[in-house]
């Protein structure tokens, strides 16, 4: 595997941390208490958890770019 570039991580170490939170709401609340910019995702399982739908979508996605 070729050497991974460190550029993006270095950039992170020098940027304002801005978070997107998916899942446990407390994590977002705690960040808000510290005045950290956080956006919460109102997450729900994809395709409403319907496996048949997920499979159809995956089939289509696989063919998306011809």
């Amino acid at each position, binding site marked *: *595997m070729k050497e991974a*570039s460190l550029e993006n991580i270095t950039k992170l170490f020098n940027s304002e941390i801005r978070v*997107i939170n998916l*899942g*446990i709401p407390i994590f977002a609340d705690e960040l808000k208490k510290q005045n950290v910019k956080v956006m919460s995702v109102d*997450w729900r399982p994809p395709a409403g958890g319907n496996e048949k739908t997920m499979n159809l979508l995956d089939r289509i996605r696989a063919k998306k770019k011809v």
Partner: protein
Amino acid sequence: MSVKKILVRKSTYFDSVSLMRIGEAVKKESGVLNVVVGMGTDFNIDSLKRLDLFAPELNGITPNDLVIAVLADNAENAQKGAEKAEKLLTERVISKVSADYSPPTLKGAIELDALSNVVLISVPGRFAGREVRTALENGKHVMLFSDNVSVEEEIELKDEALRRGLLMMGPDCGTTILNGVPLAFSNVVRRGDIGVVAASGTGLQEVTSLIHRFGCGITQAIGVGGRDLSERVSGRMTILAAKALGADPATKVILLVSKPPAPSTEELLCSELKSLDKPIVIYFIGADSAKIKNAGFEPADNLENAAAKACELSSGTEIIQIVSNEEISKKAVKMQGRFIRGLYSGGTLCDEMQRQLLPLLGTIYSNTPVPGAKKLSDIHRSEGHTIIDLGDDDFTRGRAHPMIDPTARIERLQSEFADASAGMILFDVVLGYGSHPDMAGAMSDAIVKARKETNRNPILVANILGTDEDPQNYGEQVKKLSEIGVHVFPSNISVARFVSAVIGGLR
């Protein structure tokens, strides 16, 4: 029997929807049979007639006039209904302003905040991979708190991250501090020049808290997930994170904390890290210090020592043991009841305690036994010396984590109190963001109650993990426990030393 009450307000305008809502509210009043609250339009006049609410005084009203018409079972209720309508009309509507918009997808959130750089994912494991992929594809670093992600998927995701030069911290990563921002379960730690990488949540919490206590600080504290140093994952994230810290001008010292890596991984790590031109302190819990020293790194014996060594390299001054052996020996008391019981919320602290005490105690039981310790046949019943990790899956299925919710641990505490053979009970109190706001208070109440109920008084020892800047107020937490006779210590190793002092004298 029904009575009408009609009110007309001339030349008044309200929008139809607000009026309909007021009508609905008045209809709920006791005794009210029907209501029309509306402007004097043809449509509303028809409604009034249809509902037997029309009255002669309404002849000649115009669409600019407001009509309140209430039909009730008696005069009093009709009057009350009409008054309620008037009241609602004049009341100022305080709109419920909902919280900031939460998009239903990660993609949506990324579009709304292009400057975001970290995605913190804690959705159920089987859905986590997709979300991580989306985040990485959009150039975001990921902290993956979720567990129940397969090794295969972990490797795929970390390879994708490596391709893009992004951090993929996890799965099962509960602690990370980036640019001074504590994420998930983390402490408030001073900025400084020590960079930490850990395949261990509470391990990272303890070393960073102690670095703060020693007067030093951190650049970054990067969790990589408990499995990163396994044979198959082979330290992918650990190596990337360490290299990034190696290239970071603000980081002068690197500290690595983990359970012992798989042998092949350990070799790989050593060769990759050698090229970094900075002092590296390594604490592999239970590992052979000599081997690490030979590889050219600075070994540590325990979490406190790991923090101390890093601080010594950072500050150039010697850091002594927080609580001296002498002090600890002084505190030693006699133990009634033969056995030690350890009730931990932090897995690494549980691990370290087992390893430290095994030589002394000989046999230790646990739900997560280290090499040399034994597995409990029933994790809910202690046997002999028992040191358990209540944060492990077996205990947390369907319940909140013990760092957030003391209930499960308090129940176990009560069982230990009721067991005459339990002579000493150890527990950790982990402070910081994400953790319970007053764990010491909850534990002290439980202890007082248990003493009363069982009339027993085993030795109680607590390690309070945290800093003086954590939201819980460190000093208060110490006080709540020490004032009821709990022996309070600032590090896991000092608790281990205390146990040694009580049992067989401290060396």
